């Protein structure tokens, strides 16, 4: 299991290949990548991501360990960036490895649902019209109920 909270960009292909290479006994690798999305009505100049050093790593480790245990994963990877990003840049990725695909997909969804609202990151959008903190959505909180 690897957790990385980092400012610098990551190479999705290299990270995925490296993750997949170590698991001969795992038949399924699922990855999810989050991208900074432009806003339709108000062009996004940048997104700034603040986090809570120390707690962020601990929270991500706990979330990933829960997924590994629950779905008997062979491995899990979480990379999440912070700092200033521009539209089109990759914010984060998760990868899960399991014997069969269902577990890998479910575990990846679980990781995403939890790190949306239980990992201490806060997004701030800077647009041509101004800037402001991204509000959390009630759907994100509701998404946790299915687990």
């Amino acid at each position, binding site marked *: 299991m690897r957790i990385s909270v980092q400012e610098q960009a990551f190479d999705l292909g290299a990270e995925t290949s490296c993750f997949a290479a170590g698991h001969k006994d795992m038949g399924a690798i699922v990855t999810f990548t989050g991208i900074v999305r432009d806003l339709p009505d108000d062009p996004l100049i940048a997104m700034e991501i*603040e986090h809570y050093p120390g707690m962020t790593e601990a929270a991500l480790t706990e979330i990933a360990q829960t997924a590994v245990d629950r779905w008997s994963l062979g491995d899990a990877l979480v990379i999440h960036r912070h700092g200033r990003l521009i539209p089109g840049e990759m914010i*984060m990725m998760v990868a899960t490895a399991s014997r069969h695909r269902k577990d890998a997909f479910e575990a990846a969804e679980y990781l995403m649902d939890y790190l949306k*609202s239980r*990992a*201490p990151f806060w997004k701030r959008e800077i647009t041509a019209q101004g800037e402001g903190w991204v509000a*959390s959505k009630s759907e994100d909180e509701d998404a946790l109920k299915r687990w």
Partner: protein
Amino acid sequence: MIDVLYFAWVRERIGLPREQVKTTAKTVADLVVELRSREERYDLAFSDLSALRVAVDQKLTDFDASLSGVREVAFFPPMTGG
């Protein structure tokens, strides 16, 4: 002494990222009452607790959490990771 940390708009409203607070508060809620009585910017930042989350020693918890033996308390809005 407890280290009190603020993130996102809580940090902006209070005007600093962290401070050391000398307190006899027994719970997070007591600490909030103490902070609110300090100055208007604190009062404003803590005016709606339903819009805030709290972590004690880097673990997400509730406002009724005990501060016994605690070193660090952080206040922040709901998280928006992913």
